[in-house]
Protein backbone atom coordinates (compact mmCIF):
# COMPACT_ATOMS: atom_id res chain seq x y z
CA UNK A 1 0.00 0.00 0.00
CA UNK A 2 2.19 2.84 -1.14
CA UNK A 3 0.32 4.52 -3.99
CA UNK A 4 -1.20 7.55 -2.40
CA UNK A 5 -4.01 9.76 -3.58
CA UNK A 6 -5.29 12.07 -0.93
CA UNK A 7 -6.23 10.01 2.06
CA UNK A 8 -7.05 6.93 -0.02
CA UNK A 9 -4.37 4.61 -1.39
CA UNK A 10 -4.96 2.33 -4.33
CA UNK A 11 -3.69 -1.18 -3.77
CA UNK A 12 -0.53 -1.55 -5.88
CA UNK A 13 -1.54 -5.04 -7.08
CA UNK A 14 -4.96 -3.82 -8.19
CA UNK A 15 -4.20 -1.88 -11.38
CA UNK A 16 -5.15 -4.29 -14.18
CA UNK A 17 -8.92 -3.97 -14.08
CA UNK A 18 -9.97 -0.33 -14.60
CA UNK A 19 -13.60 -1.16 -13.83
CA UNK A 20 -12.94 -2.27 -10.26
CA UNK A 21 -10.00 -1.90 -7.88
CA UNK A 22 -9.03 -2.19 -4.24
CA UNK A 23 -8.04 0.79 -2.15
CA UNK A 24 -7.37 1.54 1.48
CA UNK A 25 -8.49 4.50 3.52
CA UNK A 26 -8.12 5.00 7.24
CA UNK A 27 -6.74 1.47 7.60
CA UNK A 28 -9.88 -0.06 6.04
CA UNK A 29 -9.90 -1.98 2.76
CA UNK A 30 -12.48 -1.07 0.10
CA UNK A 31 -13.31 -2.19 -3.41
CA UNK A 32 -14.42 0.42 -5.93
CA UNK A 33 -16.88 -0.87 -8.55
CA UNK A 34 -17.40 1.30 -11.61
CA UNK A 35 -20.49 1.47 -13.81
CA UNK A 36 -18.65 -0.62 -16.41
CA UNK A 37 -18.62 -3.57 -13.99
CA UNK A 38 -22.12 -2.88 -12.66
CA UNK A 39 -24.01 -5.44 -14.78
CA UNK A 40 -21.76 -8.33 -13.84
CA UNK A 41 -21.67 -7.30 -10.19
CA UNK A 42 -25.47 -7.01 -10.00
CA UNK A 43 -25.82 -10.39 -11.66
CA UNK A 44 -23.57 -11.93 -9.00
CA UNK A 45 -25.62 -10.37 -6.21
CA UNK A 46 -29.12 -10.74 -7.69
CA UNK A 47 -28.69 -14.27 -9.05
CA UNK A 48 -28.18 -15.64 -5.54
CA UNK A 49 -24.65 -16.80 -6.39
CA UNK A 50 -23.02 -14.43 -3.91
CA UNK A 51 -25.19 -15.68 -1.03
CA UNK A 52 -24.67 -19.31 -2.03
CA UNK A 53 -20.88 -18.99 -2.19
CA UNK A 54 -20.62 -17.00 1.05
CA UNK A 55 -22.78 -19.59 2.83
CA UNK A 56 -20.46 -22.28 1.55
CA UNK A 57 -17.48 -20.25 2.88
CA UNK A 58 -15.77 -20.17 -0.50
CA UNK A 59 -16.16 -16.44 -1.22
CA UNK A 60 -15.14 -13.60 1.06
CA UNK A 61 -18.15 -11.59 2.21
CA UNK A 62 -18.52 -7.82 1.92
CA UNK A 63 -20.94 -5.01 2.65
CA UNK A 64 -22.04 -2.29 0.27
CA UNK A 65 -21.50 1.25 1.50
CA UNK A 66 -24.34 3.72 1.64
CA UNK A 67 -24.42 6.78 -0.63
CA UNK A 68 -23.06 9.21 2.00
CA UNK A 69 -20.06 7.13 2.99
CA UNK A 70 -19.40 6.27 -0.63
CA UNK A 71 -19.37 9.92 -1.75
CA UNK A 72 -16.97 10.87 1.05
CA UNK A 73 -14.55 8.12 0.01
CA UNK A 74 -14.75 9.01 -3.69
CA UNK A 75 -13.64 12.53 -2.93
CA UNK A 76 -10.43 11.07 -1.58
CA UNK A 77 -9.67 9.30 -4.85
CA UNK A 78 -8.46 11.38 -7.76
CA UNK A 79 -10.92 11.42 -10.68
CA UNK A 80 -8.34 10.19 -13.15
CA UNK A 81 -7.90 7.02 -11.13
CA UNK A 82 -11.57 6.22 -11.35
CA UNK A 83 -12.30 4.28 -14.51
CA UNK A 84 -15.61 6.10 -15.06
CA UNK A 85 -18.62 6.75 -12.84
CA UNK A 86 -18.95 4.87 -9.55
CA UNK A 87 -21.55 2.12 -9.21
CA UNK A 88 -20.89 1.10 -5.62
CA UNK A 89 -18.09 0.86 -3.06
CA UNK A 90 -17.70 -2.38 -1.12
CA UNK A 91 -16.08 -3.07 2.22
CA UNK A 92 -14.81 -6.69 2.04
CA UNK A 93 -14.06 -8.63 5.19
CA UNK A 94 -10.32 -8.31 5.65
CA UNK A 95 -8.23 -11.41 6.24
CA UNK A 96 -5.45 -11.16 8.82
CA UNK A 97 -2.69 -12.27 6.44
CA UNK A 98 -2.29 -12.38 2.66
CA UNK A 99 -0.32 -15.41 1.47
CA UNK A 100 0.89 -16.43 -1.97
CA UNK A 101 0.82 -19.73 -3.91
CA UNK A 102 4.59 -20.18 -3.65
CA UNK A 103 4.16 -20.19 0.13
CA UNK A 104 1.50 -22.90 0.15
CA UNK A 105 2.02 -26.60 0.66
CA UNK A 106 0.99 -29.08 -2.02
CA UNK A 107 -2.36 -29.71 -0.36
CA UNK A 108 -3.09 -26.01 0.05
CA UNK A 109 -2.49 -25.36 -3.66
CA UNK A 110 -4.60 -28.39 -4.55
CA UNK A 111 -7.46 -27.17 -2.36
CA UNK A 112 -7.25 -23.67 -3.83
CA UNK A 113 -7.52 -25.26 -7.31
CA UNK A 114 -10.55 -27.36 -6.33
CA UNK A 115 -12.31 -24.39 -4.78
CA UNK A 116 -11.77 -22.38 -7.98
CA UNK A 117 -13.35 -25.17 -10.06
CA UNK A 118 -16.21 -25.54 -7.59
CA UNK A 119 -16.95 -21.82 -7.80
CA UNK A 120 -16.91 -21.94 -11.60
CA UNK A 121 -19.41 -24.81 -11.49
CA UNK A 122 -21.70 -22.90 -9.14
CA UNK A 123 -21.36 -19.79 -11.31
CA UNK A 124 -22.23 -21.70 -14.48
CA UNK A 125 -25.43 -23.00 -12.90
CA UNK A 126 -26.52 -19.37 -12.49
CA UNK A 127 -25.36 -18.16 -15.91
CA UNK A 128 -22.13 -16.60 -14.68
CA UNK A 129 -18.52 -17.53 -15.28
CA UNK A 130 -15.16 -16.75 -13.72
CA UNK A 131 -13.15 -14.45 -15.97
CA UNK A 132 -9.98 -15.06 -13.92
CA UNK A 133 -8.62 -18.23 -12.36
CA UNK A 134 -5.59 -16.67 -10.71
CA UNK A 135 -4.19 -18.50 -7.71
CA UNK A 136 -3.64 -15.06 -6.16
CA UNK A 137 -7.41 -14.57 -6.08
CA UNK A 138 -7.65 -17.39 -3.54
CA UNK A 139 -6.61 -16.77 0.05
CA UNK A 140 -6.64 -18.89 3.15
CA UNK A 141 -8.99 -17.87 5.93
CA UNK A 142 -7.16 -20.03 8.46
CA UNK A 143 -7.21 -23.37 6.65
CA UNK A 144 -10.27 -22.55 4.52
CA UNK A 145 -9.56 -21.49 0.93
CA UNK A 146 -11.75 -18.56 -0.17
CA UNK A 147 -12.02 -16.49 -3.33
CA UNK A 148 -11.29 -12.86 -2.51
CA UNK A 149 -11.95 -11.28 -5.90
CA UNK A 150 -15.68 -10.55 -5.87
CA UNK A 151 -15.35 -8.89 -9.28
CA UNK A 152 -14.03 -12.02 -11.02
CA UNK A 153 -17.47 -12.94 -12.31
CA UNK A 154 -19.01 -12.12 -15.68
CA UNK A 155 -22.16 -13.11 -17.52
CA UNK A 156 -21.81 -16.55 -19.12
CA UNK A 157 -22.11 -16.47 -22.91
CA UNK A 158 -23.31 -19.74 -24.35
CA UNK A 159 -20.85 -21.15 -26.88
CA UNK A 160 -17.81 -19.30 -25.58
CA UNK A 161 -14.86 -21.32 -24.20
CA UNK A 162 -13.60 -20.60 -20.68
CA UNK A 163 -11.45 -17.49 -20.85
CA UNK A 164 -9.68 -18.41 -17.61
CA UNK A 165 -8.69 -21.90 -18.79
CA UNK A 166 -5.09 -20.98 -19.63
CA UNK A 167 -4.68 -19.19 -16.31
CA UNK A 168 -6.09 -22.13 -14.36
CA UNK A 169 -3.64 -24.54 -16.01
CA UNK A 170 -0.67 -22.23 -15.50
CA UNK A 171 -1.48 -21.22 -11.92
CA UNK A 172 -2.71 -24.53 -10.53
CA UNK A 173 -2.41 -27.66 -12.62
CA UNK A 174 1.12 -27.02 -13.90
CA UNK A 175 2.83 -26.44 -10.53
CA UNK A 176 0.83 -29.27 -8.92
CA UNK A 177 1.89 -31.72 -11.65
CA UNK A 178 5.54 -30.73 -11.32
CA UNK A 179 5.37 -31.03 -7.54
CA UNK A 180 3.68 -34.44 -7.75
CA UNK A 181 5.79 -35.94 -10.55
CA UNK A 182 9.15 -34.21 -10.11
CA UNK A 183 9.87 -32.59 -6.79
CA UNK A 184 7.92 -30.69 -4.19
CA UNK A 185 10.35 -27.78 -4.52
CA UNK A 186 8.94 -27.03 -7.98
CA UNK A 187 6.26 -25.12 -6.06
CA UNK A 188 8.78 -22.33 -5.70
CA UNK A 189 8.87 -21.87 -9.48
CA UNK A 190 5.63 -19.90 -9.10
CA UNK A 191 7.71 -17.26 -7.36
CA UNK A 192 9.65 -16.71 -10.58
CA UNK A 193 6.61 -16.83 -12.89
CA UNK A 194 3.98 -14.82 -11.10
CA UNK A 195 1.44 -15.16 -13.91
CA UNK A 196 1.72 -18.93 -13.75
CA UNK A 197 4.20 -21.38 -15.19
CA UNK A 198 4.62 -21.28 -19.00
CA UNK A 199 3.11 -24.50 -20.32
CA UNK A 200 5.86 -25.28 -22.86
CA UNK A 201 8.37 -25.12 -20.03
CA UNK A 202 6.17 -27.36 -17.85
CA UNK A 203 5.55 -29.91 -20.62
CA UNK A 204 9.29 -30.15 -21.26
CA UNK A 205 10.03 -30.57 -17.55
CA UNK A 206 7.48 -33.28 -16.75
CA UNK A 207 8.53 -36.94 -17.00
CA UNK A 208 7.44 -38.96 -20.03
CA UNK A 209 5.02 -41.06 -17.99
CA UNK A 210 2.76 -37.99 -17.55
CA UNK A 211 1.96 -38.44 -21.27
CA UNK A 212 -0.01 -41.50 -20.24
CA UNK A 213 -2.30 -39.46 -17.99
CA UNK A 214 -5.29 -38.27 -20.05
CA UNK A 215 -5.88 -35.12 -17.94
CA UNK A 216 -2.26 -34.04 -18.09
CA UNK A 217 -2.01 -34.87 -21.79
CA UNK A 218 -4.97 -32.66 -22.58
CA UNK A 219 -4.43 -29.74 -20.22
CA UNK A 220 -0.64 -29.53 -20.13
CA UNK A 221 1.06 -31.38 -23.00
CA UNK A 222 -1.70 -30.88 -25.58
CA UNK A 223 -2.33 -27.37 -24.29
CA UNK A 224 1.33 -26.42 -24.69
CA UNK A 225 1.37 -27.92 -28.19
CA UNK A 226 -1.81 -26.05 -29.09
CA UNK A 227 -0.32 -22.79 -27.88
CA UNK A 228 2.71 -23.39 -30.08
CA UNK A 229 0.57 -24.42 -33.05
CA UNK A 230 -1.72 -21.41 -32.91
CA UNK A 231 0.81 -18.82 -31.88
CA UNK A 232 1.68 -17.91 -35.47
CA UNK A 233 -1.90 -18.15 -36.67
CA UNK A 234 -2.90 -15.66 -33.98
CA UNK A 235 -6.28 -14.84 -32.62
CA UNK A 236 -7.83 -14.15 -36.05
CA UNK A 237 -7.70 -17.81 -37.01
CA UNK A 238 -9.03 -18.75 -33.60
CA UNK A 239 -12.01 -16.46 -33.83
CA UNK A 240 -12.84 -17.62 -37.39
CA UNK A 241 -12.78 -21.19 -36.24
CA UNK A 242 -14.78 -20.35 -33.15
CA UNK A 243 -17.50 -18.85 -35.27
CA UNK A 244 -17.92 -22.28 -36.83
CA UNK A 245 -17.52 -24.48 -33.80
CA UNK A 246 -19.14 -23.42 -30.56
CA UNK A 247 -18.17 -24.65 -27.12
CA UNK A 248 -21.39 -25.84 -25.56
CA UNK A 249 -22.37 -25.51 -21.91
CA UNK A 250 -22.06 -29.26 -21.63
CA UNK A 251 -18.52 -29.05 -23.02
CA UNK A 252 -17.74 -26.44 -20.33
CA UNK A 253 -19.07 -28.84 -17.68
CA UNK A 254 -16.91 -31.57 -19.20
CA UNK A 255 -13.88 -29.29 -19.10
CA UNK A 256 -14.46 -28.64 -15.39
CA UNK A 257 -14.96 -32.39 -14.73
CA UNK A 258 -11.76 -33.16 -16.58
CA UNK A 259 -9.73 -30.47 -14.79
CA UNK A 260 -11.07 -31.60 -11.43
CA UNK A 261 -10.21 -35.21 -12.21
CA UNK A 262 -6.69 -34.20 -13.23
CA UNK A 263 -6.18 -32.14 -10.06
CA UNK A 264 -7.63 -34.79 -7.73
CA UNK A 265 -5.48 -37.51 -9.27
CA UNK A 266 -2.30 -35.63 -8.40
CA UNK A 267 -0.82 -36.82 -5.16
CA UNK A 268 2.41 -35.95 -3.54
CA UNK A 269 4.38 -38.93 -2.36
CA UNK A 270 5.68 -37.41 0.80
CA UNK A 271 9.21 -38.09 1.72
CA UNK A 272 10.66 -37.55 5.15
CA UNK A 273 12.62 -34.39 5.21
CA UNK A 274 15.00 -33.04 7.76
CA UNK A 275 12.65 -31.57 10.32
CA UNK A 276 9.43 -33.47 9.72
CA UNK A 277 10.29 -35.95 12.41
CA UNK A 278 11.75 -33.30 14.69
CA UNK A 279 9.37 -33.81 17.54
CA UNK A 280 10.06 -37.50 17.57
CA UNK A 281 13.74 -36.78 17.67
CA UNK A 282 14.40 -34.02 20.22
CA UNK A 283 16.10 -34.15 23.55
CA UNK A 284 12.90 -33.06 25.27
CA UNK A 285 11.40 -35.17 28.01
CA UNK A 286 7.65 -35.27 28.52
CA UNK A 287 8.00 -32.98 31.53
CA UNK A 288 10.03 -30.40 29.60
CA UNK A 289 7.55 -30.39 26.76
CA UNK A 290 4.56 -29.97 29.06
CA UNK A 291 6.30 -27.19 30.94
CA UNK A 292 7.19 -25.39 27.72
CA UNK A 293 3.58 -25.62 26.48
CA UNK A 294 2.29 -24.34 29.83
CA UNK A 295 4.58 -21.30 29.73
CA UNK A 296 3.68 -20.51 26.11
CA UNK A 297 -0.03 -20.80 26.93
CA UNK A 298 0.30 -18.55 29.96
CA UNK A 299 2.46 -15.81 28.43
CA UNK A 300 0.51 -15.60 25.16
CA UNK A 301 -2.72 -15.68 27.19
CA UNK A 302 -1.57 -12.68 29.23
CA UNK A 303 -0.61 -10.60 26.20
CA UNK A 304 -3.58 -11.63 23.99
CA UNK A 305 -1.98 -10.66 20.64
CA UNK A 306 -4.26 -10.20 17.63
CA UNK A 307 -1.61 -11.43 15.19
CA UNK A 308 1.05 -13.88 16.26
CA UNK A 309 3.76 -15.29 13.99
CA UNK A 310 5.12 -18.67 15.03
CA UNK A 311 8.42 -18.82 13.14
CA UNK A 312 9.98 -22.27 12.76
CA UNK A 313 6.63 -23.79 13.73
CA UNK A 314 7.37 -27.29 12.36
CA UNK A 315 4.06 -29.17 12.45
CA UNK A 316 2.39 -26.37 14.42
CA UNK A 317 2.34 -28.02 17.83
CA UNK A 318 2.99 -24.76 19.70
CA UNK A 319 0.94 -22.71 17.21
CA UNK A 320 -2.10 -24.58 18.51
CA UNK A 321 -1.13 -23.79 22.10
CA UNK A 322 -0.54 -20.12 21.20
CA UNK A 323 -3.86 -19.92 19.32
CA UNK A 324 -5.68 -20.31 22.63
CA UNK A 325 -4.56 -16.78 23.50
CA UNK A 326 -4.15 -15.20 20.05
CA UNK A 327 -6.78 -14.21 17.48
CA UNK A 328 -4.66 -15.30 14.51
CA UNK A 329 -1.51 -17.42 14.25
CA UNK A 330 0.77 -17.58 11.23
CA UNK A 331 2.37 -21.01 11.59
CA UNK A 332 5.45 -20.69 9.40
CA UNK A 333 8.10 -23.25 8.61
CA UNK A 334 10.67 -23.88 5.89
CA UNK A 335 9.93 -27.59 5.52
CA UNK A 336 7.17 -28.46 3.01
CA UNK A 337 6.46 -31.79 4.73
CA UNK A 338 5.92 -30.10 8.08
CA UNK A 339 3.70 -27.39 6.55
CA UNK A 340 1.62 -29.97 4.70
CA UNK A 341 1.20 -32.05 7.82
CA UNK A 342 0.29 -28.96 9.85
CA UNK A 343 -2.34 -27.92 7.27
CA UNK A 344 -3.93 -31.38 7.12
CA UNK A 345 -4.00 -31.63 10.90
CA UNK A 346 -5.53 -28.17 11.35
CA UNK A 347 -8.28 -29.07 8.86
CA UNK A 348 -8.92 -32.41 10.54
CA UNK A 349 -9.20 -30.70 13.93
CA UNK A 350 -11.42 -27.91 12.58
CA UNK A 351 -8.91 -25.29 13.72
CA UNK A 352 -9.80 -21.71 12.91
CA UNK A 353 -7.37 -18.81 12.74
CA UNK A 354 -4.16 -20.81 12.14
CA UNK A 355 -2.47 -20.41 8.76
CA UNK A 356 0.31 -22.93 8.05
CA UNK A 357 2.75 -21.41 5.55
CA UNK A 358 6.01 -22.30 3.85
CA UNK A 359 8.53 -19.67 4.91
CA UNK A 360 12.28 -20.10 4.57
CA UNK A 361 13.72 -17.59 7.03
CA UNK A 362 17.11 -17.86 5.32
CA UNK A 363 15.46 -16.50 2.17
CA UNK A 364 11.93 -15.25 2.89
CA UNK A 365 9.51 -14.25 0.10
CA UNK A 366 10.65 -11.04 -1.60
CA UNK A 367 8.55 -8.19 -3.00
CA UNK A 368 7.61 -9.12 -6.57
CA UNK A 369 5.85 -7.95 -9.70
CA UNK A 370 5.43 -4.53 -11.25
CA UNK A 371 7.59 -2.00 -9.38
CA UNK A 372 8.11 -4.68 -6.71
CA UNK A 373 4.64 -3.81 -5.53
CA UNK A 374 2.27 -6.57 -6.62
CA UNK A 375 3.31 -9.23 -4.13
CA UNK A 376 4.60 -8.18 -0.75
CA UNK A 377 7.67 -9.47 1.02
CA UNK A 378 7.17 -11.30 4.29
CA UNK A 379 8.14 -8.28 6.39
CA UNK A 380 5.91 -5.94 4.35
CA UNK A 381 3.01 -8.09 5.49
CA UNK A 382 3.88 -7.42 9.10
CA UNK A 383 4.34 -6.37 11.71
CA UNK A 384 2.75 -8.99 13.92
CA UNK A 385 1.90 -8.20 17.51
CA UNK A 386 3.95 -11.09 18.78
CA UNK A 387 6.56 -13.54 17.51
CA UNK A 388 7.11 -17.05 18.80
CA UNK A 389 10.66 -18.28 18.12
CA UNK A 390 10.87 -21.70 19.74
CA UNK A 391 13.82 -24.00 19.07
CA UNK A 392 14.77 -21.68 16.24
CA UNK A 393 17.70 -19.49 17.13
CA UNK A 394 20.40 -22.16 16.86
CA UNK A 395 19.29 -22.88 13.29
CA UNK A 396 19.55 -19.21 12.38
CA UNK A 397 22.77 -18.54 14.27
CA UNK A 398 24.70 -21.75 13.65
CA UNK A 399 23.32 -23.13 10.38
CA UNK A 400 23.13 -19.70 8.74
CA UNK A 401 25.88 -17.80 10.65
CA UNK A 402 23.52 -15.01 11.73
CA UNK A 403 24.90 -12.92 14.59
CA UNK A 404 22.81 -12.11 17.68
CA UNK A 405 22.67 -8.46 16.58
CA UNK A 406 21.18 -9.39 13.22
CA UNK A 407 18.73 -11.71 14.94
CA UNK A 408 17.63 -8.89 17.25
CA UNK A 409 17.23 -6.51 14.30
CA UNK A 410 15.06 -9.05 12.43
CA UNK A 411 12.78 -9.81 15.37
CA UNK A 412 12.45 -6.10 16.20
CA UNK A 413 11.06 -5.58 12.66
CA UNK A 414 8.68 -8.54 13.01
CA UNK A 415 6.78 -7.69 16.17
CA UNK A 416 6.51 -5.73 19.37
CA UNK A 417 6.73 -8.71 21.68
CA UNK A 418 8.90 -11.76 21.36
CA UNK A 419 8.79 -15.13 23.06
CA UNK A 420 12.13 -16.76 22.29
CA UNK A 421 13.75 -19.99 23.38
CA UNK A 422 17.42 -19.85 24.26
CA UNK A 423 19.23 -22.99 23.06
CA UNK A 424 22.77 -23.23 24.50
CA UNK A 425 25.78 -24.80 22.87
CA UNK A 426 25.63 -27.77 25.21
CA UNK A 427 22.22 -28.75 23.82
CA UNK A 428 22.28 -31.97 21.82
CA UNK A 429 20.60 -30.34 18.84
CA UNK A 430 23.29 -27.65 18.68
CA UNK A 431 25.95 -30.32 19.01
CA UNK A 432 24.39 -32.12 16.09
CA UNK A 433 24.62 -28.95 13.97
CA UNK A 434 28.25 -28.52 14.99
CA UNK A 435 29.18 -32.15 14.38
CA UNK A 436 29.97 -31.63 10.71
CA UNK A 437 31.53 -28.19 10.83
CA UNK A 438 34.16 -26.16 12.61
CA UNK A 439 32.89 -24.34 15.70
CA UNK A 440 33.49 -20.69 14.82
CA UNK A 441 30.79 -19.50 17.16
CA UNK A 442 32.80 -18.27 20.13
CA UNK A 443 30.25 -15.52 20.78
CA UNK A 444 27.34 -17.95 21.03
CA UNK A 445 26.63 -17.84 24.77
CA UNK A 446 23.84 -16.88 27.13
CA UNK A 447 25.43 -13.63 28.32
CA UNK A 448 26.02 -12.37 24.78
CA UNK A 449 22.46 -13.40 23.87
CA UNK A 450 20.98 -11.48 26.80
CA UNK A 451 23.13 -8.42 26.11
CA UNK A 452 22.21 -8.33 22.43
CA UNK A 453 18.48 -8.63 23.07
CA UNK A 454 18.64 -6.30 26.06
CA UNK A 455 19.84 -3.51 23.75
CA UNK A 456 16.56 -3.42 21.76
CA UNK A 457 14.07 -5.22 24.03
CA UNK A 458 13.10 -5.09 27.67
CA UNK A 459 12.86 -8.41 29.46
CA UNK A 460 9.38 -9.16 30.77
CA UNK A 461 9.83 -12.75 31.93
CA UNK A 462 12.28 -15.60 31.95
CA UNK A 463 11.76 -19.27 32.72
CA UNK A 464 14.07 -22.26 32.73
CA UNK A 465 12.76 -25.41 31.09
CA UNK A 466 13.21 -28.30 33.51
CA UNK A 467 15.07 -31.43 32.39
CA UNK A 468 16.70 -29.45 29.56
CA UNK A 469 19.40 -26.84 29.11
CA UNK A 470 17.03 -24.41 27.45
CA UNK A 471 15.20 -21.28 28.67
CA UNK A 472 12.27 -19.16 27.56
CA UNK A 473 12.43 -15.36 27.42
CA UNK A 474 9.58 -12.91 26.95
CA UNK A 475 10.66 -9.55 25.55
CA UNK A 476 8.95 -6.29 24.64
CA UNK A 477 10.57 -4.03 22.05
CA UNK A 478 11.88 -0.73 23.39
CA UNK A 479 10.23 2.23 21.68
Amino acid at each position, binding site marked *: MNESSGDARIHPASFRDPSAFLFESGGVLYRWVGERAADDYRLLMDSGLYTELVE*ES*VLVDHEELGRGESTALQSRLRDKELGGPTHVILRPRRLPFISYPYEWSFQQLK*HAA*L*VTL*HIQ*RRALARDLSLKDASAYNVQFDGVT*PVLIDTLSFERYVDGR*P*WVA*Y*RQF*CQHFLAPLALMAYRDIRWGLASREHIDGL*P*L*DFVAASLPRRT*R*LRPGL*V*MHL*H*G*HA*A*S*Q*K*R*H*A*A*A*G*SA*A*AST*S*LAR*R*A*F*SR*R*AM*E*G*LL*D*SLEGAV*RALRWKREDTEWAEYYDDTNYSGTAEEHKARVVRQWVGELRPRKLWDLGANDGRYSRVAKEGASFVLSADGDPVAVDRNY*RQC*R*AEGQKGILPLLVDLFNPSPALGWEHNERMSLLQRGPADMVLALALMHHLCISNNVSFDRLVSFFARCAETLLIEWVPKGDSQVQRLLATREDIFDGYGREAFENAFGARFSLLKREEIPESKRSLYLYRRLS
Partner: protein
Amino acid sequence: MILPFQRRRAAYRNSLRLALVVAFLGLFPANAAAYIDPGSGSVMLQVLVGGLLALGVTLKVYWHRVISLFRRGGDKSDRLDLDE
Protein backbone atom coordinates in the same frame (compact mmCIF):
# COMPACT_ATOMS: atom_id res chain seq x y z
CA MET B 1 6.60 -60.24 -7.38
CA ILE B 2 5.78 -59.25 -10.96
CA LEU B 3 5.56 -62.15 -13.40
CA PRO B 4 6.84 -61.80 -17.00
CA PHE B 5 3.36 -62.10 -18.56
CA GLN B 6 2.09 -59.33 -16.24
CA ARG B 7 4.97 -57.14 -17.35
CA ARG B 8 4.16 -57.86 -20.99
CA ARG B 9 0.50 -57.03 -20.43
CA ALA B 10 1.41 -53.76 -18.70
CA ALA B 11 3.81 -52.89 -21.52
CA TYR B 12 1.10 -53.61 -24.09
CA ARG B 13 -1.38 -51.44 -22.18
CA ASN B 14 1.15 -48.63 -21.92
CA SER B 15 1.99 -48.75 -25.60
CA LEU B 16 -1.71 -48.61 -26.45
CA ARG B 17 -2.15 -45.55 -24.28
CA LEU B 18 0.99 -44.06 -25.79
CA ALA B 19 -0.37 -44.57 -29.30
CA LEU B 20 -3.58 -42.74 -28.39
CA VAL B 21 -1.63 -39.91 -26.82
CA VAL B 22 0.71 -39.62 -29.82
CA ALA B 23 -2.33 -39.50 -32.09
CA PHE B 24 -3.76 -36.71 -29.90
CA LEU B 25 -0.51 -34.74 -29.86
CA GLY B 26 -0.20 -35.22 -33.62
CA LEU B 27 -3.03 -32.72 -33.92
CA PHE B 28 -0.56 -30.04 -32.93
CA PRO B 29 2.44 -29.92 -35.26
CA ALA B 30 5.18 -27.93 -33.54
CA ASN B 31 6.07 -24.54 -34.88
CA ALA B 32 9.36 -23.69 -33.24
CA ALA B 33 9.66 -20.25 -34.80
CA ALA B 34 6.34 -19.03 -33.43
CA TYR B 35 6.02 -16.46 -30.71
CA ILE B 36 3.80 -17.52 -27.84
CA ASP B 37 0.23 -16.34 -28.00
CA PRO B 38 -1.35 -18.40 -25.23
CA GLY B 39 -4.84 -17.01 -25.66
CA SER B 40 -5.68 -18.42 -29.07
CA GLY B 41 -3.96 -21.76 -28.42
CA SER B 42 -5.96 -22.25 -25.21
CA VAL B 43 -9.20 -21.33 -26.94
CA MET B 44 -8.51 -23.64 -29.89
CA LEU B 45 -7.76 -26.57 -27.63
CA GLN B 46 -11.08 -26.17 -25.86
CA VAL B 47 -12.96 -25.97 -29.17
CA LEU B 48 -11.11 -29.02 -30.44
CA VAL B 49 -11.88 -31.23 -27.46
CA GLY B 50 -15.27 -29.68 -26.64
CA GLY B 51 -17.28 -32.44 -28.32
CA LEU B 52 -15.42 -35.15 -26.46
CA LEU B 53 -15.85 -33.37 -23.14
CA ALA B 54 -19.55 -32.84 -23.76
CA LEU B 55 -19.95 -36.51 -24.62
CA GLY B 56 -18.28 -37.40 -21.32
CA VAL B 57 -20.79 -35.29 -19.39
CA THR B 58 -23.73 -36.79 -21.29
CA LEU B 59 -22.54 -40.30 -20.44
CA LYS B 60 -22.04 -39.27 -16.82
CA VAL B 61 -25.57 -37.85 -16.60
CA TYR B 62 -27.08 -41.09 -17.93
CA TRP B 63 -24.89 -43.16 -15.68
CA HIS B 64 -26.04 -41.19 -12.63
CA ARG B 65 -29.65 -41.72 -13.69
CA VAL B 66 -29.07 -45.46 -13.84
CA ILE B 67 -27.30 -45.42 -10.47
CA SER B 68 -30.03 -43.34 -8.84
CA LEU B 69 -32.56 -46.09 -9.64
CA PHE B 70 -30.72 -48.33 -7.22
CA ARG B 71 -29.68 -45.77 -4.63
CA ARG B 72 -31.72 -44.03 -2.00
CA GLY B 73 -31.11 -40.38 -1.02
CA GLY B 74 -30.24 -37.37 -3.13
CA ASP B 75 -27.27 -36.84 -5.36
CA LYS B 76 -24.48 -35.37 -3.29
CA SER B 77 -21.98 -35.14 -6.10
CA ASP B 78 -22.04 -31.33 -6.37
CA ARG B 79 -20.90 -30.73 -2.80
CA LEU B 80 -17.38 -29.46 -2.31
CA ASP B 81 -15.32 -32.23 -0.78
CA LEU B 82 -11.74 -31.17 -0.22
CA ASP B 83 -10.59 -33.70 2.34
CA GLU B 84 -11.34 -36.93 0.47
